């Protein structure tokens, strides 16, 4: 098993497990109490999860943040997912990070806002809405590109019963046959 996250799912410091996701204590981290929640299936990026898994994994992450605040008495929690290598993803298996925070802990996830003109914002708005309204079956290209550009193989299985995704997955697999 070459995937680090798959290894953690089997042998890691698990604190929660159900049919779809596993939560475990991160080991390659500088942050004590850092929890990771991963789908059991080897999905590369978020877009590959079924709708149910996509929601459920954040429900579990949310409960983990409650536990950190309630029992480890941290002052706040970040929930962060780096989806795609250019977003900071390390392993080719989607994970959600639950990160305990205290005042002045030296971590900083804030950003300098970029200035966009009203025109630029409107263009982005139009663009996103037009893509959102297109039929679902065209969605596969974008995710395929991200997985392949990231250099992280995409062998995510499709969720049973999710016909649209399964079809996309088959198409993607076929595309890769030389």
């Amino acid at each position, binding site marked *: 098993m070459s995937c680090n996250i798959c290894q953690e799912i089997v042998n890691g410091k698990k604190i929660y497990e159900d049919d779809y996701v596993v939560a475990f204590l991160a080991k390659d981290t500088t942050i004590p109490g850092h929890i990771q929640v991963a789908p059991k299936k080897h999905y590369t990026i978020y877009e590959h999860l079924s709708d149910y898994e996509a929601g459920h994994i954040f429900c579990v992450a949310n409960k983990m943040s409650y536990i950190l605040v309630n029992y480890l008495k941290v002052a706040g929690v970040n929930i962060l997912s780096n989806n795609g290598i250019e977003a*900071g993803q390390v392993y080719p298996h989607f994970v959600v990070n639950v990160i305990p925070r205290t005042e002045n802990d030296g971590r900083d996830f804030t950003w300098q806002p970029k200035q966009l003109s009203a025109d630029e914002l409107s263009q982005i708005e139009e663009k996103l809405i037009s893509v959102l309204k297109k039929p679902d079956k065209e969605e596969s290209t974008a995710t395929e590109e991200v997985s392949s550009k990231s250099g992280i193989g995409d062998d995510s299985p499709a969720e049973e019963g999710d016909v649209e995704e399964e079809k996309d997955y088959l198409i993607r697999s076929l595309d890769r046959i030389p």
Partner: protein
Amino acid sequence: MSNGEQQSGQSCIFCQIAKGNVESKKIYEDEKLLAVLDIYPSNPGHILIMPKEHYSLMMQMPDSDIGHMFSVIKKLSNVILKGLDVNGTNIYIANGAAAGQKAPHFMVHLIPRKENDGLNFALASGKQDEEALDKLRSSLVPIVKDTFGLTNEKVKEFYSELNKGEGINNESGGTKGEGQKKEQKQVDNSSKDSEGVDLDTIGNMFK
């Protein structure tokens, strides 16, 4: 249902946006949530996804609403990848002022990412002590078991107690386990204000 709205609806800018009283660049809307472009974006195409109901923290939202919200976020992330020619997205949530939360209305940031765009959400790689992890794990497992029977009411109760008492700025310490839980149960007598007060006091943390 709308205690929070009564308390914060007038003053919370995001409640006003959700009601349509303040103009916004709406990308998606349904009866539960709203997704708008951040007008002060970290990157072009930065989307804020927020529940229409006023929750200060994600922990106050019912699971069904969280599930729905994140299946929408998955679609929006795909739309960003496809529409904005980027190669990744960050899904970012700040719960509590110490975590960088700036507005007293819970929201999720969905951020388009490209190489060398000046943002950094990477988590430093390090090593945790094996024994410390085992110790933490064995103290958390029973708590996790208990927590998965968690209800929204229990969370609200917890926050009302937290804000009345010692405040949210505790240093991280050891696990207190069951003892903590019993303390919380004593706030039953305040059920009529625990529904409203918690949201208000949590909102005040940001001022």
